[in-house]
């Protein structure tokens, strides 16, 4: 080790005029001084390694003994025992090795000198020479025609690699402006997922103060039902008509106090699922945008800007709630082309 000791000149060690006193004297540990303590640590380290072996055995036994698929409780038990076995197997090795290193291995601090990161003057000169030689042998400096066309070719060559990504998806087109809602499309109850036979909704089924999660009855008509549901999900609420503060232009968009609004937040698209009965506020659980249902779902708090789009509804001749048209305004998060139609 002493061969690695760097002989430092004192001015290298000086900082702010103070002289570095050098490493403090090494203090022997108990294990260095007392053989019986050394033997105790030796046994302790071996003990940790034995614990590790027991952990491995526990893992293997639990793995063979417990079939987790039988029940939820067995799954949890299997996880706990396998995890405990793995933890002990790993912990034993880890603690054993560290106790060994800290108490039984040499703990004298060793000094190594740092060297310049840059090459020597000779290295640099040779490197420059090699580059010069390469430049000379290739003639890249003397033949600008080759050099410049090469640069242009290399600059253009990656373009195909970019252009192939055009195939990642279709262009947006008018998809973000249209949903499955249309004139006469009946409102069905959203029972979760994509129901085989959507249950339809009559106006008299909706009582004051109730809130119904709704999807269009023709949810299976699109290419992907989930894509359609992601745009068409609607919240239906019935509010005492006296409490509704309706714009005269939109007075016929509701039916007997029943109003329908897009459930997709105009902020970043979470479902606005929390309805406060007392205040008639809709709250987005993701980012707490708050919409006032009595005032055409205008934003009254939080990060959203646009009101939730309203779905104009009425009842058909059989008494079912139906849409009058698609949403007049685009649903979901704001996007660049939102005002283009």
């Amino acid at each position: 080790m002493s061969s690695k000791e760097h002989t430092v000149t004192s001015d290298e060690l000086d900082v702010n005029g103070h002289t570095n006193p050098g490493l403090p004297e090494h203090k022997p540990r108990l294990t260095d001084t007392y053989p019986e303590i050394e033997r105790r640590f030796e046994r302790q380290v071996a003990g940790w390694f034995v614990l590790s072996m027991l952990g491995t055995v526990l893992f293997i036994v639990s793995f063979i003994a417990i079939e987790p698929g039988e029940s939820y409780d067995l799954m949890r038990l299997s996880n706990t025992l396998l995890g405990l076995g793995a933890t002990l197997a790993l912990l034993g090795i880890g603690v054993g090795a560290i106790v060994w290193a800290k108490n039984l291995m040499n703990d004298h601090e060793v000094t190594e000198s740092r060297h310049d990161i840059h090459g020597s003057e000779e290295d640099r000169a040779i490197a420059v020479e090699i580059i010069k030689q390469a430049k000379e042998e290739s003639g890249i400096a003397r033949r600008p025609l080759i050099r410049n066309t090469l640069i242009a070719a290399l600059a253009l060559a990656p373009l195909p690699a970019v252009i192939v990504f055009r195939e990642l998806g279709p262009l947006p087109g008018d998809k973000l402006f249209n949903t499955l809602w249309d004139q006469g499309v009946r409102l069905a109850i959203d029972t979760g997922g994509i129901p085989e036979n959507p249950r339809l909704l009559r106006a008299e089924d909706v009582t004051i103060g109730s809130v119904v999660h709704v999807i269009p009855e023709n949810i299976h008509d699109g290419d992907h039902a989930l894509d359609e549901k992601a745009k068409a999900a609607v919240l239906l609420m019935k509010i005492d008509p006296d409490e509704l503060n309706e714009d005269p232009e939109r007075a016929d968009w509701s039916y007997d106090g029943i109003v329908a609004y897009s459930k997709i937040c105009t902020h970043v698209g979470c479902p606005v699922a929390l309805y406060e009965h007392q205040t008639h506020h809709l709250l987005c659980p993701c980012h707490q945008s708050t919409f006032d249902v009595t005032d055409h779902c205008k934003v009254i708090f939080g990060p959203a800007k646009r009101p939730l789009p309203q779905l104009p509804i009425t009842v058909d001749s059989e008494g079912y709630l139906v849409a009058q048209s698609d949403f007049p305004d685009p649903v979901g998060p704001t996007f660049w082309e939102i005002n283009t139609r």
Partner: protein
Amino acid sequence: MSTTTPEPTTAVGKAADWADTRMGASKLVREFGRKIFPSHWSFMLGEVSLYSFIIVVLTGTYLTFFFYPAMGELHYDGPYVPLQGVEMSQAYQSTLYISFELRGGLLIRQMHHWGALLFVAAVSIHMLRVFFTGAFRRPRELNWLVGVGLLALSWAAGFTGYSLPDDLLSGNGLRIIDGIIKAIPLVGTYISFFLFGGEFPGIDIISRLYTLHIMIIPAAIIALIAIHLIFVVVHKHTQWPQAGNTERNVVGEPVLPTFAAKGGGFFFLVFALIAGLSAFFQINPVWNYGPYDPSPVSAGTQPDWYIGWADGILRIAPGWMEFYIFGWPISMNILVAVIIMVGVLVGMAVWPFFEAWVAKDNREHHVLDRPRNAPTRTAVGVAFVVWYLVMWAGASGDLIAVFFHMSLNDMIYIFRFLFFFGPIIAYIVTKRICLGLQRKDREVALHGRETGRILRLPHGEFIEVHEPLDPHSAWRLVAFDSPEYVPAQADENGKISTAEKWRGRFSKFFFEDRVAPLSKAELEAAHAHNEGHGHHLDSEGNDQDGQGRPLPH
């Protein structure tokens, strides 16, 4: 092949000879076997990052054998009763299979998730350590940049993996990402359609994230880790300021055997920690959330911790930040999250060069700064940490409001206030604390340690006995780098450039408030002064003068 070494006779000797004549193993052992690594707990943070990444790669590889990254719909018929008959994607179904039916599957899945959380946390804290100790300074600026890249990749790795099970919670997370992408001016809608293969959610996103998650991102992380470690070898490790440590040496433990035993043991400890967490603490129970469905959402949901600050910004930013120019939307209420995240990464990347420019400091630094000895840097760092934590806590604003029975709206107002003023307060307080600690160091170096022992002198005066420091303890209190305010300098034409004026302003900001380190003369004067009064005690508590003679009473 001719060799001058004697023929090996033992089995080990033969094996070593075999390896050496094929790989040059002896050169490797010679080069690295006694390489010195300084020992300090704060240097283990980078090790935790590396080890947790290895564990995540091991557990993740196992998961790929059983996970189906596909969005085809099927009806669940596995053992978990509440979901039987429910329509779900193959990705979600195979996650349930791993969790319920595969022996050890849930353990591996939970270890992968806990390991990933620990990985991002360890990388973050490791970078804070590097920042606060100035370890990013020359010659390590490039390695700091590699670290910034690794931090960004760790977020990407975490988020792409988080979304794979296609459960309700992660699906809503993806939908938020879609909303953020759509807010990007001009190209947002197109990027969204290209990423999802059409409209959200589509049927492509899981397999695309899977490719990123198991190949592109880990490959990039492994490449950067390799560069990171090569740089550590080239630069050798930094060390704390203490007696014996200089800019020209490195003091510590040799790789073989001590550092290897400690580091190897520590790998197993990190592994054991992750296994223990996975055995006893449930993480991401996707069976409780159900398969992804665009309509329902659960209240009080939280993203994984490292996404929290982005989610918090989305909650804190008010809606009026969205505005329209000739009908074209600029959704600053959403884009601000992207701008802050990118801005933070860019800010981290330029910091080493910025600080070197301000301080006109182009020297190599291998001895670390104690954070107090770089008060402005430390204060800026703490201000950033506070700012980050405000945004991060913002993602839990609803839970905090419920817990403290507060109005949710008031909670958001508080976060909006703290977003701006939290960092300013933190900056001022931290800088004062650093300067105060520096003054205390100065005091201790000058007059010694307060022993708490009160002595009554013969003429009735009470004094507290100060015990002078031994030179080894005193060293780190007096020997530290302390740049001074350098006003803007004129160039050779006598002109002060605009850039130089700015440098001068920043220099004033950084170094105007400064506690100068003790000079040798001050220290000697103080010792002479102390000797004059002679109020030192020897180890038995006898009053002594400076020469160790009992004082005349």
